[in-house]
């Protein structure tokens, strides 16, 4: 039994659509760019243009100098949007769990759909043919047990490829690939890893905890991904509804750590309450700071387990904030964002699960907040600092 997470990757969606509409472009170097615009840049390009050294974001004038006779197509956003919409619609007809991961990218969770669509491998082929018939493009498809592995696989077998990985094949296939194919590794990190003689994902996966932290703040997360550890679910929510966010403007601006910690705890309490009302826990906590001098900084912390209690979320937010605060400048505004939600059911235990004291307290607090409103109960620490709880956000941005 193989994985059920399908990644659809329409690499070069714009170029593929243009080529589909004009078969004369096949096997010719061409780019999609706003010809005539001041400092026009290459928006998308054909594989042949890529082979000639043209890259996305390159100045069009430079691309034209590099490839004489390069064909330039004007972008047609409405067509690209329609193709993206069609892909999503086809995906939705096979599973309710379809996540949009950028234009031309979809994650589809085919778990539990076998009785309707057949085994995931067969369902994938049906999706593949339907997308080809309805849009004329041939994206890459990869079926694996996690989003990270399936995404790496579509980056290997492209364009128009397909791969269905069995669990025992995933690790070995991912390890072989160049490190830049791992989601989250950009050119800067790639260069840094290259200095450490890490060229393949396998080299990254072999790093220990200390070495992983030495790479950077996201090191441990990247190493886990390199090992194929990724339990993030396919999230059908549109991106704008995938996070809970709250902000506070500090009056006056302050650089005092204790005040900032209490403010973060306060924001965490309101957001945590909103998440728990929907029976959700959180895996990612992000903190952004706006300094008095107009500069900003942010840090996000991805957690190994689902957090539900206020004290856990506040602790994570404080950790993220400490990593953000690299300057001795007063802070003007604090933002906390919770994302990557999961169902916050009780953890299964072989025997009677032990309900901790803090969990019982949290449950009691939530009952009071739910009955009498959020400001009815305020922690002493907040009162002594002159803070009060505001109403919990209803969700969304």
């Amino acid at each position: 039994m193989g994985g059920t997470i399908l990644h659809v990757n329409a690499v070069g969606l714009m170029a593929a659509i243009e080529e589909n509409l004009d078969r004369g472009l096949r096997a010719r170097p061409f780019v999609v760019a706003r010809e005539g615009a001041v400092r026009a840049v290459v928006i998308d390009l054909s594989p042949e243009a890529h082979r000639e050294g043209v890259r996305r974001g390159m100045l069009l004038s430079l691309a034209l100098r590099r490839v004489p006779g390069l064909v330039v197509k004007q972008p047609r956003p409405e067509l690209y949007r329609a193709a993206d919409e069609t892909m999503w619609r086809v995906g939705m007809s096979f599973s309710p769990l379809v996540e949009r991961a950028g234009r031309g990218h979809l994650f589809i969770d085919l778990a539990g759909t076998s009785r309707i669509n057949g085994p995931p491998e067969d369902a994938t082929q049906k999706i593949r043919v339907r997308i080809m018939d309805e849009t004329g493009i041939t994206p890459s498809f990869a079926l694996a047990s996690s989003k990270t592995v399936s995404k790496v696989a579509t980056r290997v077998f492209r364009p128009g490829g397909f791969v269905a990985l069995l669990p025992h094949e995933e690790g070995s296939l991912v390890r072989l690939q160049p490190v830049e194919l791992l989601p989250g590794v950009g050119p800067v990190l790639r260069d840094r890893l290259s200095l450490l003689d890490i060229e393949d994902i396998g080299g990254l996966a072999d790093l220990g905890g200390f070495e992983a932290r030495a790479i950077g703040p996201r090191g441990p997360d990247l190493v886990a991904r390199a090992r194929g550890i990724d339990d993030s679910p396919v999230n059908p929510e549109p991106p704008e509804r995938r996070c809970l966010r709250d902000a506070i403007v500090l009056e006056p601006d302050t650089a005092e750590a204790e005040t900032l910690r209490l403010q973060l705890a306060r924001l965490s309490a309101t957001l945590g309450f909103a998440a728990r009302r929907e029976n959700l826990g959180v895996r990612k906590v992000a903190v952004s700071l706006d300094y008095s001098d107009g500069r900003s900084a942010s840090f996000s912390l991805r957690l190994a387990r689902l957090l539900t209690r206020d004290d856990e979320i506040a602790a994570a937010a404080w950790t993220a904030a400490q990593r953000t605060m690299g300057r001795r400048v007063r802070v003007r505004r604090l933002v906390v964002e919770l994302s990557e939600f999961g169902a916050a059911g009780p953890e299964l235990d072989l025997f009677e699960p032990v309900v901790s004291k803090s969990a019982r307290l949290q449950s009691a607090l939530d009952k009071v907040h739910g009955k009498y409103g959020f400001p009815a109960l305020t922690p002493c620490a907040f009162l002594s600092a002159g803070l009060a709880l505001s109403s919990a956000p209803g969700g969304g941005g």
Partner: protein
Amino acid sequence: MPAPGCDIRFGCVGWKNDGPRPFPPTALGEPAAQEGPAETVEVPYEKWLARGEGDSWPESRDLCVRLGRRFARPAAGMGEARAYAADVAECHRLAGAAAGRASPAAYLLEFPPAFAYSLETRRHLDRVLKDLSGLPLAVAFFDASWYSSRVIEGLKARGVCLCLMDAPRRLFSPPSIDVVTAPLVYVKFYGRAGATFSEEAEARDVEENNTLGPSGDYEYDDAELMAWLPRLEVLAAQAETLRVIFAARRGEAGAKNARRLAGMWRERSLRSPKDEATRSGSLRAGS
């Protein structure tokens, strides 16, 4: 959109060492006369070379040549190196129109499982690909270590096809993939039975000039073959030439499988005439 006129043909391994039977093969992979000739046939390089001048191979017959083991391993010693150079020259001669016969549609080079990714094997592959550049070449790897982005991009840059395989899936065996790295797409079915590679089996294969697959004579069931139809459809949309070959050791299973899959393909194209252009190749070939 399907590529108009993709030339797709179904066939099987086309030789059986059943005595002094001359070229072309008749018993092996040759469907019964009333069912028409196979659309294509894969013959071993040694047999292709050894054909007598008097042997007749109809010009219309499509042919794929499976290269010998000299190509699959670095030459050990002067003698092997000379023989290898002679084989390379012969391949280029065969491919030329001057040979007076229809040139092969594809050359297949199968690397055994022992041929894992390493500096030495990479150099050997690079040399072979350079030596055979210009030929419609497909390479098949039975070790999973070759299935990396670098290798695939390298094959694309050289215009060499990565052979797509339907084979038993074990530890260290390649995953089930579709990827188009050249205008030629070569799909080979080795069966799904439990047979494994071994030196003994390989020696027997070479002796019998049969396929170097992990198994043969496996009769696919309808569901297994039908699962390939959409995959072939997408591949045909991206390729100019598509060859689908079933391995066979001794029996007729390869030919039967090829006939059944070709029939399913035609039936599918009749059911959905919008893709007529893609399947025209197969319809022409099968008629």
